[in-house]
């Protein structure tokens, strides 16, 4: 049974505008807090599940495969070098505007890790390819605050 009245002319269309105004304030979590403090010291940690032999980066509190607690003993330092497993060059921003220069993003398996870490990738003229060796570059110590941005970017190993 169709509706008995329809909008037949575009002038009759009405809309109401509004916005959602909220702010998320996210804590890093038990494992995340310690992981970010590591970045602040210029070190990248992972947690290695002894049962599943899988190393999570960023470090996690628990292993999602076996549900085991990843305690103090499971923290291992990984990197700072690693292997590029994929990369992309982004030409548009979130709002659809062209990005100039484009931004390069890499997916990196740090040495000693199983999980992949996504971050900015510095283009220094080296041709990018899967399998390229890359290394982490940190911000100067005074600028670090305990954030994923304390790691400035990855760059090809010279």
């Amino acid at each position, binding site marked *: 049974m169709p509706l*008995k009245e329809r*909008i037949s002319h575009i002038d009759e269309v009405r809309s*109401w*505008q509004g916005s959602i105004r909220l702010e998320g304030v*996210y804590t890093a979590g038990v494992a995340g807090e310690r992981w970010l403090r590591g970045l602040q010291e210029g070190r990248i940690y992972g947690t290695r599940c002894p049962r599943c032999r899988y190393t999570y980066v960023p470090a996690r509190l628990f292993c999602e495969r076996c549900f085991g607690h990843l305690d103090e003993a499971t923290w291992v330092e990984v990197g700072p070098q690693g292997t590029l497993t994929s990369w992309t060059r982004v030409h548009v921003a979130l709002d659809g505007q062209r990005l100039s220069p484009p931004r390069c993003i890499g997916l990196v398996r740090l040495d000693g890790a199983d999980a992949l870490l996504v971050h900015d990738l510095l283009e220094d003229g080296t041709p990018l390819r899967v399998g390229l060796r890359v290394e982490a570059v940190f911000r100067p110590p005074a600028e670090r605050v305990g954030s994923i941005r304390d790691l400035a970017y990855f760059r090809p190993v010279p």
Partner: protein
Amino acid sequence: MERWVYPTTGLKQEDLEEARVCMTRAPLRGEYAWDAGVAVGRFLAELKAGRLVGRRCRVCRRVMVPPRMFCEQCFRPTDEWVPLQDTGTVLTFSVCTVAWDMRRLEVPEVPAVIAIDGASPGMGILHKLGEVGRTVDEILDRVHIGLRVQAVWKPPRRREGAITDILYFRPVGA
């Protein structure tokens, strides 16, 4: 059962304010334009003209407001527009002293569900009451469930086809 309660790490407000723990702040901003649709679109157009309208279902005979193009009980299209009065009865009300973000309001707001005359019994809309006082006690003195109220409209040229074209409802005879 105490064994099965995990000793979760509680933080204090100061831990965040003084950045004792790592935090990421990010706005969750979204801008939307919602289609009013057929029934509410007409409802808004009528508000602009200073009128309230409802919609009748011939099967259950309810006159519904806010209007809808379908009857959710009979699950069929509604049949016709029904002009309503701009008077009504307070079904329930509150005296609210805080805003949506929990900041204190200087003058309390008085949200109410108002059954509109001409619609079926109990058919209310959400709106606010005005001219009923400036403090909780004053308002509670003057407002009660069952109070008869009347819409106070914006001047015609300031209306925009919105629920806020009615500024508020005030007691009849006030």
